[in-house]
């Protein structure tokens, strides 16, 4: 952002507003997705605290070994996302079931003692804060962190709450609210510690209504791996499976990217980077959203025209009107805008390039067109996806995001996959047609039943088409209903495409009519009728795709909305520290930008920092490096850099300064992890990297 101050602050507010909306959206989405599993869990805990001990008869109660109710929560390997789930779980529990919830992480519970302390701290500590009378419950210390202490505390606590003088806020709360202990990452816990803790818990389960929750990242069978039978027999485990993270991503993308509500769009490559980081590296939706946030920030920071990238149409118009001369100039510089100008009449061209007022009007028009383009793009995309996702070998991708990326990359209808999909669509129906043809001779005699089958089949096709149409219509309806869509827009500009589709719709309706007529006439030549319908349908879809799924690069002013620097995003999100260190060491010019370091062959110059020289020299050695030889070589190189005469006595001699510099460089190299000292030979160091001899 090298533009004026007021411009960048405007962009900042825009960006912040947009991000807040996105954040809100994702959070509500997250809650929505987690709701089912959390509700199940909540129900489980409520049931447990009312307890089988109380519901079953006295005999069962006496006979049943007292098990600790345990919920195994399988959340998938995207560990970074779990925090949010656990947080909302904690909040939910504290709101509706029990104030006693302790969340534990493996890294803070290395030993049983610390685990105990954490449990007590979380339970007793949080309650003390609640009551604002912390002095009555002195903070548990050291050796006193036992479940017996907890027991006492719990007894006094429940006694206090049951006395009439102190009324609880909610009446429904059971007299003995359960104590829920959540192990966020079961796999990372020390099995020994966990076993001991459960053994201890089982001794107190009669006095304390304990409930455990295990957060599991891999699979429930880890419980059996971590806990031996003698321990797991103390638990009564119920399983809760959360939504898979790929499904989660699809929903998030559906809400954030495959919609016209958000003006900010990542282009194909950026989206590819984000999705591939998700699929290849971490499965973390949170990181995906973070990546999106980074893209958003970068877009608003570096693209001066992002002032025009606003959520509301009024804002767009306002900002366009307020565009400065410089801003307009930068619009004129845009590649997509220049292409647009070239297509215009010469007069128009002149007007566009000279008159700022005219330019602003055109901008408004173009931005409106862009908005409209988005509004049409997504319904058609969904329509095409609905059609092709069930084809054999799914040529256009199973997930809608794949199709979206393909469409963003270029004209989808020119792709081989699209053609084969269309062919499959026609052949798909054709195969059934063939089936009917085979059946034909048998059925000719009984004309009635033949038409019956035929009719059914036709109806099927029709159903499919109506299904498609419905999807399309729904999308379109939602577009019209949306508050942003002003009625006159729909009437004036939006006319072209809806009109076309309406026309097509009536066509289909007529087709159905003809179908009914055909049924009445019961002519044998009905195959062609089907073919007509099929072709019409396919043509209709094809036309839709061709008119609406054009890549955004063809749209003028697309730069306003689309963020395109994928390399930057990749560099930031998928850092390669090893490569960076390698680059820094082998070509210091890359980072230092000092001309003295430039060498023509790409090697390291004599004047490079000591570390680079030492690194370069160590590359020529084998696995073990003789320190003295290394020092000699270093001294020679440095002497050459000092411009000493190669013939002179001093050349290549090791003085104290050089020695010190060498030692420092070597220890830096050790710090970077390239070498380490070895016990095999005393005056040698070992290389830790590949290469060399």
């Amino acid at each position, binding site marked *: 952002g090298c533009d004026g101050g007021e411009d960048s602050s405007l962009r900042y507010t825009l960006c912040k507003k947009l991000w807040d909306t996105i954040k809100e959206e994702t959070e509500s989405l997250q809650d929505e997705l987690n709701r089912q599993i959390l509700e199940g869990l909540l129900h489980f805990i409520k049931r447990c605290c009312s307890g089988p001990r109380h519901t079953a008869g006295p005999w069962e109660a006496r*006979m049943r*070994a007292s098990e600790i109710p345990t919920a195994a929560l399988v959340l998938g390997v995207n560990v970074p996302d779990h925090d949010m789930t656990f947080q909302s779980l904690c909040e939910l529990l504290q709101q509706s079931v029990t104030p006693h919830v302790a969340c534990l992480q493996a890294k803070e519970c290395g030993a049983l*003692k610390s685990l105990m302390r954490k449990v007590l701290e979380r339970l007793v500590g949080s309650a003390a804060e609640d009551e604002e009378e912390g002095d009555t419950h002195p903070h548990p210390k050291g050796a006193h962190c036992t479940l017996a202490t907890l027991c006492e505390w719990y007894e006094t606590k429940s006694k206090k709450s049951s006395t009439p003088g102190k009324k609880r806020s909610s009446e429904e709360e059971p007299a003995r609210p359960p104590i829920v202990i959540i192990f966020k990452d079961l796999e990372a816990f020390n099995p020994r510690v966990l076993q001991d803790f459960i053994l201890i818990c089982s001794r107190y389960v009669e006095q304390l209504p304990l409930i455990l929750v295990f957060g599991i990242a*891999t*699979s429930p069978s880890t419980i059996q791996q971590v806990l031996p039978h003698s321990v797991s027999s103390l638990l009564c485990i119920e*399983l809760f499976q959360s939504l898979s993270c790929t499904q989660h991503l699809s929903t998030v993308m559906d809400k954030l990217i495959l919609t016209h509500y958000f003006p900010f769009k990542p282009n194909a490559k950026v989206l590819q980077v984000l999705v591939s980081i998700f699929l290849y590296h*971490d499965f973390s939706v949170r990181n995906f959203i973070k990546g999106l946030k980074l893209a958003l920030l970068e877009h608003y920071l570096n693209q001066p025209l992002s002032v025009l990238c606003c959520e509301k149409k009024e804002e767009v118009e306002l900002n366009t009107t307020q565009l400065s001369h410089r801003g307009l100039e930068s619009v004129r510089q845009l590649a997509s805008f220049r292409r647009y100008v070239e297509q215009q009449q010469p007069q128009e061209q002149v007007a566009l390039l000279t008159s700022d007022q005219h330019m602003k009007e055109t901008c408004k028009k173009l931005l409106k067109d862009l908005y409209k383009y988005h509004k049409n793009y997504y319904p058609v995309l969904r329509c095409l996806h609905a059609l092709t996702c069930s084809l054999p070998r799914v040529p256009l991708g199973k997930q809608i995001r794949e199709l979206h990326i393909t469409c963003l990359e270029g004209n989808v209808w020119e792709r081989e996959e699209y053609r084969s999909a269309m062919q499959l669509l026609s052949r798909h129906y054709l195969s059934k047609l063939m089936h009917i043809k085979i059946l034909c001779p048998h059925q000719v005699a009984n004309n009635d039943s033949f038409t019956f089958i035929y009719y059914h089949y036709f109806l099927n096709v029709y159903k499919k088409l109506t299904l498609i149409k419905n999807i399309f219509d729904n999308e379109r309806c939602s577009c019209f209903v949306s508050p942003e869509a002003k009625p006159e827009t729909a009437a004036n500009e939006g006319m072209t495409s809806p009109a076309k589709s309406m026309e097509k719709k009536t066509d289909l309706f007529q087709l159905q009519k003809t179908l009914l007529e055909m049924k009445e006439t019961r002519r044998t030549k009905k195959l062609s009728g089907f073919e007509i319908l099929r072709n019409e349908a396919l043509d209709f879809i094809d036309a839709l795709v061709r008119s609406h799924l054009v890549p955004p690069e063809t749209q003028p002013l697309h730069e306003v909305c689309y963020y395109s620097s994928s390399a930057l995003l990749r560099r930031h999100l998928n850092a*390669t520290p090893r490569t960076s260190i390698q680059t820094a060491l082998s070509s210091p010019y890359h980072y230092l930008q000092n001309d003295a370091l430039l060498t023509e062959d790409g090697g390291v110059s004599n004047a490079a920092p000591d570390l680079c020289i030492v690194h370069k020299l160590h590359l020529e050695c084998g696995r073990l490096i003789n320190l003295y030889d290394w020092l000699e070589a270093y001294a020679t190189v440095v002497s050459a850099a000092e411009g000493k005469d190669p013939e002179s006595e001093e050349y290549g001699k090791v003085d104290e300064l050089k020695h010190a510099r060498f030692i420092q460089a070597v220890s830096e190299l050790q710090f970077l992890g390239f070498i380490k000292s070895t016990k095999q030979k005393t005056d040698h160091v070992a290389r830790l990297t590949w290469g060399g001899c």
Partner: protein
Amino acid sequence: MTASLQHPGYDPERLLCVAEKMPCRVSQAGTLLSLMGERLQISSMNEFYPSIFLYGHRSTGKSHVINTLLMDLELPHATVSCVECVSVGLMFERVLLALFGPDTSTLLPRSPSLSDFVRIYRQQAPLSPANQTRYIVIEKAELLRDMDSNLLPVLVRLQELVDDNVTVILLSEIVWDRFRPNTGCFEPLILYFPDYSKGDLQQILSQDIHPSYSPELYSAFINILLGVFYSVCRDLRELRHLAALNFSKFCEPLKEGKGRIDTHKLWRNIEPHLKKAMQTVYLRDVSSVQWEQQLQQTEEKECAALKGLSAHAHVELPYYSKFLLIAAYLASYNPARTDRRFFLKHHGKIKKTNFLKKHEKTSNHLLGPKPFPLDRLLAIFYSVVDSRVAPSASVFSQISSLVTLQLLTQLGHDDQLDAPKYKCAVALDFIRAISRTVNFDIVKYLYDFL
């Protein structure tokens, strides 16, 4: 009951009452009682044995017998379980609390030592003189071995140190031979609790009669239950639990009012359920609550099998994590020398027999995973994965997250500079399932299956 509990120091009626509480354990209880000696004995020192060691399998009644004796005969005692005592101080505190009342435990300094404990014990013992022996019962005594090395030798002859009439009773599941420290120590008196026999189990379990059914019926049920489970499980606790879970199903035909049904028919009815319970509930693959729910609704959907914990073995992993895991598996189960053969294009033919040393000829899958350095893992990873992968930070972080997921294990210390070594901790079936999802034929790359 063949032998009844007898001891001159106690009221025989009371003893009879106590004996009823511990069926099939009368002889052990008798031995214990005679060891404990007269109740009201103005004792001279060292008349009682300073320590007794009780051992036997899980749920053979060790704690039950000793606690019943101590409680019902109202003897002064302290019971501590070693699992709970995360520190020695906690154990001392518990003992003092139980023997001398709540005030004494506060006398202990922070992180008390053994001598602190002995000192305070000696202070307190004369203040509350007892004319009976005091007992300290230590459950799960095998954990004492992991505590301070001087603790066990001191406990077995605590009597001498504190100069009081005290007996330490250690309960454990393992034999005393495993306890004996290197330096040797005082030998406690050893008493073995044998496993219950089938008859014993039958007798004990039959005592939990359901109030609304006849004892004969319940005993018949226990007979059937033992017939199915006795071969795999002799744990009284588990058996009792299983009995409780399955009894309602057993009684179902009776409840439905089909009149008098003989036990044989009942057996026919319950047997498949018990068999199923053995595979699921007993292994805790299915929780008991789920099992009960299942029993209630079996009529509707017989075939809808309960999915246990082990049924969900599938793990979803990111793409590169899968390949990292595959590479780790290959590195763990292939000899390093064979890497050339699998991952070099022009490796030439290497015959299996001549190529390998003798010890490598045994199946690596029988020997288990071998450790491998990080470098080898990455080298195999890069040659296995089909696209060019930048050595980005997230690839490395995936390795460590695989370690936290316990799919890999890191060996040695975690000094990254010192070339960390890993082992692959997944089974062949698991890795085959993983490699199938990425279209990688792992069997072709495993030396054992060549």
